């Protein structure tokens, strides 16, 4: 089979076809790493690109991510066995509350689609939880989301907590969310800011390369 077809199935958001092709690839002993790189990551990267260009909107990204997940689910047993190396490890969460905003989940999906291992800590995440993720899970990037100006200061709290725990130097912190800005990121000495899910993937890549 052609992995390009799998990438296309994901771009088109065709979950059943993505499953079919993944099963075929597995049965043909294509390596999981290759399936992920040339099928999933390749597909989601096109999706991210179109999203940035306003050719794809959120529903399309969700539908594509849904197909990607179906494929990933089939590959999970192999990931558990260590057959696949993630591009990086990320811990993501909304610092306080979550008003049904899908932004953070979209970022998580896009990062997964780009080959990252994503620990989604959920909503209303306490600083200690992030510190733990860094210490225990070897997380290299901490991604924070806030939805109200009143909850943004919690981001600074998390950066302080990382510093107090002596792990600030071990991770890169990137932030996002409706009220968040580049200026604010500089103010609280975060390492990066991303205005949307597709840019978040680019930012993660940049931060790890630095």
């Amino acid at each position, binding site marked *: 089979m052609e992995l390009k077809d799998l990438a296309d199935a994901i771009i088109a958001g065709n979950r*059943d076809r993505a499953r079919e092709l993944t099963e075929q690839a597995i049965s043909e002993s294509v390596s999981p790493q290759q399936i992920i790189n040339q099928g999933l990551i390749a597909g989601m990267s096109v999706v991210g690109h179109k999203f940035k260009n306003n050719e794809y909107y*959120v529903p*399309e990204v*969700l539908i594509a991510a849904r197909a990607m997940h179906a494929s990933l689910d089939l590959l999970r047993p192999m990931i558990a066995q260590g057959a696949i190396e993630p591009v990086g490890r990320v811990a993501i969460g909304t610092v306080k509350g979550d*008003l049904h905003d899908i932004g953070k989940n979209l970022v998580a999906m896009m990062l997964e689609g780009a080959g990252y291992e994503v620990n989604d800590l959920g909503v209303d995440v306490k600083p200690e939880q992030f510190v733990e993720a860094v210490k225990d899970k070897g997380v290299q990037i901490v991604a924070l989301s806030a939805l109200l100006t009143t909850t943004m200061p919690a981001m600074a709290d998390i950066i302080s907590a990382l510093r107090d725990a002596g792990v600030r130097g071990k991770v890169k912190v990137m932030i996002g969310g409706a009220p968040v800005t580049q200026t604010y990121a500089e103010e609280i000495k975060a390492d990066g800011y991303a205005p949307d899910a597709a840019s978040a993937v680019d930012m993660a890549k940049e931060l790890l390369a630095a």
Partner: protein
Amino acid sequence: MPDVQIEFLPDKLRVRVAAGSSLLEAAEQAGIAFETPCGGEGRCGKCRVKVRGSPPPPTAEEIEALGEDQVSAGLRLACRCRPHSDVVVYIPPQSRLLQQSILTAGIARDVILDPAVSKRFLDLPRPALEDQRGDLERLLRAAGMPHAGASLALLRELGAVLRAAEWKVTSVFAADRLIAVEPGDTSRLIYGIAFDVGTTTVVGYLLDLAAGAQVAVASDMNAQVAHGEDVVTRIQFATDNPKGLDLLRRDITAVLNGIIMQCCRSAGIEAHHIYDVTVVGNTCMHHLLLGLPPGQLAVMPYVPVVTAAQDLAAAELDLAVNPAARCYLLPNIAGFVGADTMGVLLAADLDRSDDLRVAIDIGTNGEVVVAGGGRIIACSTAAGPAFEGATISRGMRATSGAIDSVTIDDEVRFTTINGAGARGICGSGLIDAVAEMRRARVVDETGRMLSPAHADRLPPPLARRLQGPPERPEFILAWPEQTQNGEPLTVTARDVRQLQLAKGALYTGVDILLEEMGATASQVREILLAGAFGNYVKRESAVAVGLIPALPLERIRSIGNAAGEGAKLALASASARRRVEELAARVEYVELSACPGFHLRFADAMFLAPLLSGESAASGR
């Protein structure tokens, strides 16, 4: 600070403001209201104006929202534009805040009249040596309410009123309290008003509590929209500004008092004959009306200041009714499921049988209630304002000129509210448009619009409506000669996406609640569509786009403004209040954002197709 003069056209209104004030601020001073769903933050682009002469250089937000060409032609955003010299500003019709057509007829029902307030004419025996009872005791005994209480203010007036009226008076009781004593027989003049305070629109129903009939109804925009179209923006406004909460409270109070006046005029009565008020509204509206700081509603875990029903003096809320009038606010459930949902529950009798029934409020908050087997569960889906016109390129609220229904067979046909030239498209029109565009294959089930490059796949009358670059197509619904501003009215690819997100949220909410109930969609006996908007949407369209589970049409019913109906029931019947209070205690609230896998099911609900339990009933995807 030097002044500048701003002249607004076509109104021909001139104001002088401090240089550097925004055009929005100047317009406010001139009494001109703008569409500002984002609260004047420069994000929605709806407050566009044309500045004649030399407009100030554009801000980044204006270039982003309007585009270079428009900006060079003098277009600006009223909320961002701050002139430092005199300017003349033309405000196009679509930037203005207009009155909207609001659904006011709800479900009629018979209810035993048992209001919380009552009046009785009394011809009292005069005091005499043999009968030296106190004035109050005399009155209470005659009224058959020997143990009622009376306020100090009332006691101060009581003696004088009784004697001036020569002991022929009408007593006014609210439950076990004597709230007023009026000279002569005014017992037939007892009215109450029920309010549905929506995020976007407010409706008031005036009831004659002696005759047991509705005698007037009036509606108005919720003036708070000037500070944000949705609850979160308003909560943000209240928290960020020290005067914010007070401003919002006064905004809504003014609207309620305006509706009271309108109703009185319409019914030919005096406001001081209104002795009772009931209110339903979502929790945020409830808090803003009471002046309760709403900040905690927006932060996890979203707890209200109070959920219990409130029984207050109307005077405490500055309502212009009888000074002794009472005001009852129905109970809330949670931060985002409020008294209005309780109103819906009450009116729809959702608890009366064990049948599995679902009630959906199609609006910005998108509350869903599922009842069955003695359980009642509720959630808020935060569908977003797409159903009420916001975030849609030519979206508008349901007011004159809004396209409110669409059919596509060999051609596109539509109707507008009041039959006026098309100004924009409202929620029901958008749902119809997308459903019909699906059927005509202009849009596929993933929500992708056909590229103009492939327009030849459509019959010619439809093909020529597909315009725009391949990555950003749009579909013309109304040609220039059919619209008010002479420009074609289109539904863009992005508009379809916005609708997908909103309807996906509602659908997912229904799906999750049904699962919580241990049931499947096919077991639902009835889906009730509520909300000002619910009455206009075609059931077929709602099913076709996957807004609600694909049940047979006879199991889908529109119940109109059920929240308002609930407020009326609470006004007409004190036992309805007991019932709604009991019900409130039984409703279980489900926090959707805490449901794991919400976003996966949300993705499942994206498809524009008849859906049942999250699976597309169409092609296997």
